[in-house]
C-alpha cells in the first residue's frame, strides 16, 4: 500500500510537530511526504503533475494545523486546483475512486474541548465534514481522522505512543481492526530486528513468536465463537 502525506503548514520549517512527524515516518519506503509550502511559493501548482502524483497512491492524507476550523489556505488552493471535476467525480470516470482519504490535524487546544458543550462547541467530525464530502463525491473511503493535540505539552512517553500510532495510521491497511493492528506490530518488530545485536535478536524472536501465538489463538477462539453463534442463530 502506497501512502502520500500532503502537508500544509505556513510555518513548516519552524514547526516542532511537523519536524517530529516527519522523522516518525522517514524510514518507510511506502510513504511519501509532500510539503505544499515547499512545492510552491506563489500559490500556483503544476496541475497535471499533481494529478499524476495523486493517482499513484492508495491512501492520501491531508496533514495540517487547524486554522479557524479548516486547513491553511494553501491546502484549499491545492484542492481547488487539482481536484477538478473530471479528475474527481466518481460518477464521471474520476480517477480517485477506491482510494482512501484521511485527515491528520494538529490542534493547539485540547482535543476534549472539541465537542458539543465543550469550549470549541463542535466535534472534529463535524468540522471535517467538507473533507468527508469530498471523499464521498470522489468515491474515496474517508478513514477516521488522526488528531495531535497540544504536542508541545507531551511527555516523552506520549510522544513515543504518538510515533507508533502515527506510523500505524500511515501504513496499516485496516486502521480499525485489532487483528490488523497485531499483524502490523509483528511486521514492525521484524523490520526492527536487523538493528539489534544477535543476543537481542534472539530475545526479540521469542517475543515475536509469543505475539504470533496469541494472535493465532485469538483467531481460533473467534472462529469457534462464530461457529457457535451461527448454530444458535
Amino acid at each position, binding site marked *: 500500500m502506497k501512502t502520500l502525506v500532503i502537508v500544509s503548514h505556513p510555518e513548516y520549517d519552524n514547526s516542532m510537530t511537523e519536524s517530529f512527524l516527519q522523522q*516518525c515516518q522517514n*524510514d518507510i519506503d511506502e510513504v511519501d511526504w509532500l510539503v505544499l509550502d515547499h512545492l510552491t511559493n506563489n500559490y500556483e501548482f503544476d496541475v497535471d503533475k499533481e494529478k499524476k502524483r495523486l493517482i499513484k497512491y492508495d491512501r492520501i492524507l491531508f496533514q495540517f494545523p487547524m486554522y479557524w476550523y479548516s486547513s491553511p489556505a494553501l491546502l484549499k488552493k491545492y484542492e481547488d486546483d487539482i481536484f477538478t471535476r473530471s479528475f474527481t467525480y466518481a460518477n464521471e470516470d474520476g480517477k480517485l475512486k477506491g482510494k482512501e482519504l484521511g485527515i491528520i490535524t494538529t490542534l493547539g487546544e485540547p482535543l476534549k474541548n472539541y465537542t458539543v458543550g465543550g469550549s470549541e462547541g463542535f466535534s472534529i467530525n463535524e468540522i471535517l465534514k467538507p473533507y468527508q464530502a469530498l471523499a464521498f463525491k470522489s468515491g474515496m473511503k474517508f478513514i477516521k481522522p488522526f488528531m495531535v493535540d497540544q504536542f508541545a505539552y507531551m511527555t516523552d*512517553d506520549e*510522544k*513515543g*505512543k504518538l*510515533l*507508533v500510532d502515527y*506510523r500505524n495510521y500511515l501504513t496499516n491497511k485496516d486502521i480499525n481492526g*485489532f487483528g490488523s*493492528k*497485531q499483524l502490523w*506490530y509483528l511486521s*514492525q*518488530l521484524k523490520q*526492527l530486528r536487523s*538493528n*539489534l545485536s544477535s543476543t*537481542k535478536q534472539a*530475545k*526479540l524472536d*521469542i*517475543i515475536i513468536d*509469543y*505475539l504470533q501465538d*496469541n*494472535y493465532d*489463538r*485469538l483467531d481460533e*477462539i*473467534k472462529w*469457534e*465463537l462464530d461457529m*457457535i*453463534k451461527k448454530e*444458535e442463530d
Partner: protein
Amino acid sequence: METNKWLDQEINDLKKDETSFKLISILEGTKSLAAEQAKRLQQAQDELDGRTWSPDKW
C-alpha cells in the same frame, strides 16, 4: 499477569542501551499490545466457556 511481567522484562532488556526513539517507542508499544491480547484472550475464552456450558443446551 505473570506472562506479561515476563514480556515487559524482556522488552525492558531489549530497550536497554538502545538510543533510537523509533525502536524504543515501538518496543514500548508492544507491551500495550501484549496486554490487550491477554485481555481479549481471557474475554474470548470466558465467552467460549459460557456459550459451551449454556444451560439452554442441558
